Structure formats: structure tokens, C-alpha cells
């Protein structure tokens, strides 16, 4: 970790917008995101400003660290830069990606970093799930149709739970532990207001309208989630949530074989990891309490999950 006179790692917020902008436009800003070092470059002023606020708590990587991904979000590198206000996401200088309007540069950067992790980090088993932790034990919300995991996740991390990730369940193959990658939580459309009402003190970035996913805004996780991003957690609960308007709360067991199927089919690289993936998912499902959760009220859902964790006796 980049040491300092501060006695703690240097964070993005310590640099100030001016320095941030210079670094982004120059040799790049190296941020530590959980197990990954990401080098980010950008020639866009908007990125520097948003990095200062939304990436503020994140530590910088050590000066001699190996960067895992080299990404850039910038205006096109050719004549197009003057034609239309677009931006491109580059990974290692290449951009096989469709361009974005320059106003959506920040969400594009966030999605781009997701893409990097999902396509490269095959030394880990990557489940598609939100993960939160309490008392050293992790609760996973695998993505499945109608899941709304990000909203539930955002609510939980402002109710005493630590964020590991809202997108990636990173399973370390040697011991099945979950690795944190506590990044910004993107909320869509109505969820933005829902979380704003649920926890007015939550730090939510600006709304980006008309993106490919509708209106998007990013929740910055509490500082503690970021400062504890090197602490893995042991999986304990597998929860399959579904938000249904006006539905009474129900938290009921689901069969382990169903849970196995849903976890395996909602992963980024289950197939790639062959037998290791099979063993890790089997072990996880075997040791976790598997529940389906139907809810319409966020407070009720949070209370029910709190109770599940408190009276854990399985």
C-alpha cells in the first residue's frame, strides 16, 4: 500500500482534483480495488471530478505495484474527437467496444472495469452475486431473473453490513473464501430514489440519464467497507431475492440442488474452472443456508436478513 506521513495509505481524496486530473491525463492513476490494481487514464475533466468524490476513500496502489488492468476512458484518438462528443473505453490501448456519449463516460468506465475483471480474473471463481458480510460471515445474493440485488445490497451496507461486492462473488480456490472488491454500487431508475429515501445519508453520485440501462447513479460504499477490503469472508447464507410489489415478506428454504444450479448458471466463469468450480460451488451450497426471499418493503427485508444472521443455528 502506498505509505505516507499520514500513517495510513494515501487515498484518492488526498490528491485533490488538480493532481488527480494531471495524473489521469498523464501516467495514470493507480487505485487498489480489492484484489486488483487498476491503472486509470482519462483526458476528461468530468472523470477527475467524479474520481475525487466517488473514488475518494479508495487507496492508491503502491508505487512499484504491478497493475492488473490498464484502462482509459477518453475522447476518440482520431479525427472523430471533433465530430461527435463521444468517449471510448480502452483496455491496454485497444477498444473493441462501442463508443459512449461523453456524458456517460463515468458509467462507461465503471462497466468497463467490470468487463476487465469478468474476462480476466480466471484465477478466481467469479460468481455473479452481491456479497455482504457481518461477523466474519458472508451473505450472497446470486443474480437471477428479477433479483434486484443491487438495491438490497445498497440497503444492507447502510444497515450494519459490510460490502464485499454488488456484482462479483470472488471465490478464492484454495479455501473457498470470498474476496472483497467493494466498488460503487450502480442503481437504476426507481431504485435510486428508494435508497435515497431509505438512507438519506448514503453518498450517491450524479444521475446519468438515457444510458443503455436507463437512468444510473452510483452509491459510494461506507468508508469501512473500503478500508477493510483486504479482509475475506466465509460464505454462510445464499439468498435468492425477488422484489414483488405489495407482496408479504417471505423467507423460505430452497432445495440445495436448485441453489447449486442457480449459482453455477449465474457465474462469470464456472465453466472455465472445470472441477475446481464444481467443488467450490458444491462446498458453498453444502455449507450455506439457502433461502428464497420475497419482499416488497426494504425495511422488512433488511430486518428479516438481520434476524436470519442473528439466530443462525443451522
Amino acid at each position, binding site marked *: 500500500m502506498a505509505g505516507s506521513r499520514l500513517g495510513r495509505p494515501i487515498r484518492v481524496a488526498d490528491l485533490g482534483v488538480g493532481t488527480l486530473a494531471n495524473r489521469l491525463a498523464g501516467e495514470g492513476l493507480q487505485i487498489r480495488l480489492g484484489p486488483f*490494481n487498476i491503472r486509470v487514464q482519462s483526458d476528461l475533466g468530468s472523470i477527475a471530478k467524479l474520481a475525487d468524490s466517488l473514488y475518494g476513500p479508495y487507496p492508491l496502489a503502491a508505487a*512499484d*505495484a*504491478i*497493475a*492488473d488492468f*490498464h484502462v482509459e476512458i477518453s475522447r476518440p484518438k482520431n479525427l472523430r474527437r471533433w465530430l461527435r462528443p463521444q468517449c471510448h*473505453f480502452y483496455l*491496454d*490501448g*485497444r477498444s*473493441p*467496444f*462501442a*463508443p*459512449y456519449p461523453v456524458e456517460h463516460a463515468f458509467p*462507461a468506465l465503471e*462497466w*468497463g472495469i*467490470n*468487463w476487465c475483471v*469478468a*474476462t*480476466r*480474473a*480466471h*484465477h478466481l471463481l467469479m460468481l*455473479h452475486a452481491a456479497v455482504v458480510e457481518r461477523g466474519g460471515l458472508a451473505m450472497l445474493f446470486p443474480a437471477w431473473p428479477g433479483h434486484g440485488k443491487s438495491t438490497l445490497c445498497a440497503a444492507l451496507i447502510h444497515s450494519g453490513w459490510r460490502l464485499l461486492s454488488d456484482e462479483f462473488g470472488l471465490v478464492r480456490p484454495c479455501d473457498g473464501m470470498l474476496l472483497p472488491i467493494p466498488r460503487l454500487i450502480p442503481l437504476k431508475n426507481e431504485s435510486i430514489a428508494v435508497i435515497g429515501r431509505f438512507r438519506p445519508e448514503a453518498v450517491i453520485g450524479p444521475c446519468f440519464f438515457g*444510458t*443503455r*440501462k436507463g437512468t444510473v447513479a452510483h452509491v459510494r460504499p461506507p468508508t469501512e467497507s473500503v478500508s477493510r477490503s483486504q479482509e475475506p469472508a466465509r460464505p454462510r447464507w445464499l439468498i435468492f431475492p425477488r422484489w414483488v410489489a405489495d407482496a408479504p415478506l417471505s423467507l423460505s428454504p430452497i432445495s440445495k440442488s436448485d441453489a447449486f444450479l442457480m449459482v453455477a448458471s*449465474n*457465474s*462469470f*466463469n464456472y*465453466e*472455465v*474452472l*472445470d472441477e*475446481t468450480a464444481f467443488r467450490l460451488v458444491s462446498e458453498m451450497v453444502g455449507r450455506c443456508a439457502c433461502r428464497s426471499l420475497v419482499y416488497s418493503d426494504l425495511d422488512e427485508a433488511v430486518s428479516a436478513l438481520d434476524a436470519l444472521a442473528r439466530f443462525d443455528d443451522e
Partner: protein
Amino acid sequence: MSELSRQTERANRLLLGALKAPAALPTLSAADWDLLLRVARRTRLLGRLEADLSRAGLLGDIPVDAAQHLRASRNVIEHRKTLVAWEVNRVLWALKGIDVPLILLKGAAYVLAELPPAAGRIFADVDLLVPVERIGEIEERLAAKGWFKMRLDPYDERYYRVWMHEIPPLRHRERGTEIDIHHRILPRTSRFSSDPGPLFEDALPLQDARLRVLAPTDMVLHAMLHLFLEGDPVEGLRLRDLLDIHGLLRHFGPEAGFWERLPRRARQLGWERPLYYGLRFAQRLFDTPIPQAVLEEAGRGAPPGPVGALMDYWVPLSILPGHPDHPSPMAAAARQALYLRAHWLRMPAVMLARHLSYKAWLRFRGVGKKLDLAQLDLKQQ
């Protein structure tokens, strides 16, 4: 020397050094590892580094962060290897009772014959060479057992029907591996085309006698053909293809009669030009040990002076990746030029077909397709 040249040279030297002397890798600085990982990834040689370090027992001596990338690469490669081997297994199952010579080409051959290029290389498809008169029967049997022809748009369909040198790729309805069935190595109209008969005559059986691979000289020549005729507009010629050639030459070199047969066979099949280039550039970049007599004889396939000089300049420039942060316009131009030279982009489709294999054609057609970041594809590459 300009900054661009310095950085380009540094990146290329780092990569070639890693490939030629993996034992020195534990002494690399973090900054060098950072760069090496990037250029190795760009040339799809991460897996190769992992395999070399693994074989030398040095994986524990490199930085953990670097080792993780290599591990990731290895996992993907092992997975793909199994998929390829399994697909061949299922094809044999489907063709039970049909007695037909099946020659494995390229990746599938390397994997099943356990040849050096199989180490650390990603293989995606199964390429088979079968006699033209048996294709209908094979196609029918595979269709009955669950394989389907991949759908083509009319533009592609015209290509393969008019210049057919293979039927469109087949895929089993439950699996992702593609099978390309060839009845010749190149389109009939290709400048380097030749009758596949001699290839069948000299093909060698594997442990399972239903499967064959090309004779060593033919395998090497095919790899050389593949290298020079299947570029990519962005990547140019592929360094790992040249590395495969180097690996095959080192593996087969000690076999009795191999070096004598190689130039003779090239002459017989009309592949002297690719042999010339293949030997020349493998030696120049990887110091492949090649008997002087063979080089001289292969020299007969050399191009006219000016073309040779141009290739001598273009090939190393384009085949080495350079530094990702300092793209070289000259290298990009060389890659384009080699691609154009091989594929005559500005000629009508009819002329393009003269040099293209079907997959290269699909790739050419695919240039310009963009990925949508917002839709995270859960199926990994």
C-alpha cells in the same frame, strides 16, 4: 533513438527474452513484469510463459500478482484443451462404423499428439481434413447425432459455396466447440493450393487409429502456410504461430531424414515460398537451429529481391507487439500492409478468396463489430 523506438524495443526485447530464456524471469522488476504481462497478453502468449515457468519449477519465484495472471491463463487453456479433446471423442462416437481417414489439423493435432505447440496455447476449434467424397456422409451422420451447421448470412454463404474448400462450421447443439471440416488445405483457386492426396498418403495414425495427423514435414509446412496466409488487420501476423513453427522444428529436427525431406516436400506441394519465410523468420526471432544446407535449399523459394527486402522489414516490425502505451504507426502500417498483401483488400470478393481460408474470411467480415460494455457477456472467451 526516439522515445517511441526505445519503448518499442524495450517491450519487444522483454517478450523475446522471456520466450527464449524463461529461467531469468524471477529476476524481473515489477515494472518489467507489468509490461511483460501486457505484451504477452497482446500476443496471446501468457499461457506459454506459464507453461515454461511451470516446467522449470519457477512459478513460486515470481511476484504473486504476476503469477495470478498466469494462473488465470492456464485455467482457460486447460479448460479449452479438454473441450477440444472431448469434441474429438464425440466426433469419433458419432462416426462409429464409418471407416474414414480423419486427419486432425492445427490445435486439435497438437493437443492429441502432445506436441510442443500444445503447451500454453488456447485452442478453440477442431479442424479436420477428410476426403472430399466422404464429406456428405460425415455431415449427414453428424447432423443425425446433434450437430448443426452454423447459420451464415448470404454474403458468407456465397463465399463458401463458390470457392468451397470446406463446409461451414458445425456445432453440437449442447456444446460450444466448432468443428471445421476441410477437404483441402486452401481454396482451389489459391496460389498455393495443391491436391491434398499426398497429405493423406503420408498422414500418421495416433494411438486411436481412427485419428491421424499430418506427417511432420506436412505439419510444419501447414503451420507456415497458416502463419502467412491468415493474418488479422489489427494483430497482423501472429507471433504465437511463428513460435509454434519454432517448436515444431525443434521437436522434429532430430528425427532421421526430417531436414532432407522438408524442402523436397515443400517443392512437391508447391509451398516453397511459405517454407522460405517460415525458416527465415523463426531463425531470426527465435534462433531456431536449422542446418545451413536446408536454408540454402529453401532459399530457392525466396521472393524477388525487393519483395524479400520488404518482408524482411515488415515481418519483424509487425509480428512483435511493441509497447501498448506507445503504439508505433509504422508497425500498424506494416500490419495493415501484410494483411493487405495477403488478402488484397481492394480486390473484389472473388479475388479475396484466392488466399483466404474460411475462418480468415469470417474474420475479415467481422472487422468493425463492437462489443457493448453494458451487456456483460457471461460466456467467457
